[in-house]
């Protein structure tokens, strides 16, 4: 295995810190779980909270959540020194470890997502089983567990199960992602990470990233399929995104303010870092372009009651900015925390390699894979029946 390049440093850092342990992949991982949680939240607006407005996007958001969830373990597996031993965390979970709880949270949540998708698409799958032939028919028959019961009673069961799953899924999804924030927030070894607000910040930024993704994918799918966009749905997502964004920005600002205000030992180094290497990444990109600008755009559009194509364009641009800013936030937390030395006397610089298991190309592959899976899933289990106002289950 190729050793990671040692990180250049200034000041004094512990000798062992010059190899940065958690790399690009570990910044991608919370980004993916964030998309899972956020997309699930969008889906739950309809499936749990019964908001009809979001029906057009609900099933698609569910598939998006599932596609991302399937690939969530991939960056972790690529990072582990012994991926073949990964199941040790489930065979002998060390209960005091947040990572051990991840094994169960993730397994539980994958199961929950699969079940929810199963129920949501069951009626359609039964119909498809009946109307297809050959291998595809066998596939759909197996997926429906060889049952073709779509009577009112069966659908009543389905509805109750779906509701239960959607409700359990909300703490499930947010627990899954919130624990990631907890992993960082509960560590006392790094000033940049150890904060009680960290899980909350992670959860809220996850929700906005998932919502932004759903917006982008929804518009993209509508364009590709050449169908009309449901504006009520889109505007609903815009409102939700807007509200959560403002709250997320507030939380992130609060967390940073808390750190500065406490002014614990080592704060000079943190401020040197923030004013130096971190300034552009955090204030210009993450807060500026990634938060204030999209909030501004959406606020302006709402104030001026923008409609039609202009609204869609403005919203998509805002969503893309949000997606970028949430990734930047993950990067600034994960990598930034390791660039500040535990000695509080020095700074390191992480430059990801291009090749290798933990390189940029691997990262791109990990980020692309869920969308390839999503495409496949939308072919096998088209969620589109809901997308145009005319369509219905």
């Amino acid at each position, binding site marked *: *295995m190729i050793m990671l390049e040692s990180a250049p440093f200034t000041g004094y*850092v*512990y*000798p062992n810190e*010059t190899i940065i*342990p958690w790399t690009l992949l570990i910044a991608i991982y919370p980004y993916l779980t964030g998309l899972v949680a956020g997309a699930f939240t969008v889906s739950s607006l309809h499936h749990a909270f019964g908001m009809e407005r979001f029906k057009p996007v609900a099933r698609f958001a569910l598939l998006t959540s599932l596609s991302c969830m399937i690939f969530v373990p991939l960056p972790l597996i690529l990072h582990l*020194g*012994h991926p073949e031993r990964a199941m040790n965390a489930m065979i002998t979970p060390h209960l005091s470890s947040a990572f051990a709880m991840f094994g169960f949270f993730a397994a539980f949540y994958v199961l929950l997502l699969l079940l929810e998708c199963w129920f949501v698409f069951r009626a359609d799958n039964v119909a498809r089983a009946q109307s297809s032939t050959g291998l595809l028919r066998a596939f759909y028959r197996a997926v429906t567990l060889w049952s073709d019961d779509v009577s009112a*009673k069966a659908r009543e069961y389905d509805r109750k199960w779906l509701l239960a799953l959607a409700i359990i899924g909300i703490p499930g999804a947010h627990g899954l992602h919130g624990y990631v924030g907890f992993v960082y927030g509960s560590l006392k070894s790094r000033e940049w990470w150890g904060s009680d607000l960290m899980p909350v910040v992670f959860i809220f930024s996850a929700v906005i990233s998932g919502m932004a993704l759903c917006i982008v994918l929804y518009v993209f799918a509508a364009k590709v399929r050449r169908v009309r966009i449901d504006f009520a749905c889109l505007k609903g997502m815009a409102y939700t995104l807007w509200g959560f964004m403002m709250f997320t920005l507030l939380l992130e600002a609060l967390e940073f303010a808390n750190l500065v205000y406490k002014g614990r030992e080592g704060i000079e180094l943190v401020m040197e870092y923030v004013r130096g290497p971190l300034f552009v990444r955090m204030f210009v990109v993450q807060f500026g372009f990634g938060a204030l600008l999209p909030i501004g755009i959406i606020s302006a559009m709402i104030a001026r009651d923008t409609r039609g194509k202009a609204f869609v364009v403005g919203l998509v641009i805002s969503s893309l900015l949000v997606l970028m800013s949430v990734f930047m936030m993950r990067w600034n937390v994960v990598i930034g925390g390791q660039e500040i030395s535990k000695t509080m006397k020095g700074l390191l610089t992480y430059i990801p390699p291009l090749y290798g298991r933990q390189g940029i190309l691997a990262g791109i592959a990990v980020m692309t894979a869920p969308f390839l899976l999503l495409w496949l899933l939308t072919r096998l289990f088209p969620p589109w029946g809901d997308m145009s106002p005319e369509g219905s289950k």
Partner: protein
Amino acid sequence: MTQDPSKDKSGRRAFLRNAGKALAGAMGGGALLADSAARDEHVAGATGTQSFPTEEYDWKEHRWAYGIDATRCIGCLRCVEACKTENGVAGDAHHFRTWVERYVYLDGEDKAHVDSHHDPQNIAASGSESEYRFDNRYKDANVTKAFFVPKMCNHCEHPSCVQVCPVGATFRTEDGVVLIDKEYCIGCEYCVQACPYGARFFDDETRTSDKCTWCYHRITKGLQPACVEVCPVEARIFGDLNDPSSPVSEFISKNRVQVLKPETGNAPACFYVGLDKEVS
């Protein structure tokens, strides 16, 4: 199913429901029983009078601790090289089970200059990344105060690393040593992040975490850790706290000792004399 939903408690539905409950109960109970039986079997053999981990050495009889006299350290780094030799640590300047830090105050300055073996000038002074020495960059400087501080795993009583390990690959033994199970570690590096002292690192050869073990394979044979063995000035002290006449017991009782970063609550078992305000 064509039954009237109002007839809830009768027929197939009731049977299926009850059967389902029974099955779930049996499964759950069975699984739990199997698990606890398996555990009981293991524990039964252990708590007896058997000496563990070897016939000659019983860990219940010892409570190890380490002392460092930073006023004596001359920064010769024989300890750093000996540790690498003894434990097969990678021969480069980025993986250390133990290391020494140099603190130098120059006239007119309040903050110390700190350096260690990963400093490029020190690497140039030794000529290679696998031999270690401090360069003499301060020989013409106006040094007001300077000293060396050896560092390593503190084998804390409440180790952050043990707390976060997801698989139980790192743990604290009954005799007070924090060890790593190289056959079980998955290499997630959570422990590397959690250690406040920077004592842990990722070993590329075994692809697991690694750190100082107080030379457990030596101390269980009545030897001293390699670093203590080679120190020419008795800056490193090791011993059994259960023995009041051991070097470390005397060191602690005769000196005002400190630990590094006490605010973490980890309760380290490495006790220092001669620390300074800047040592972190």
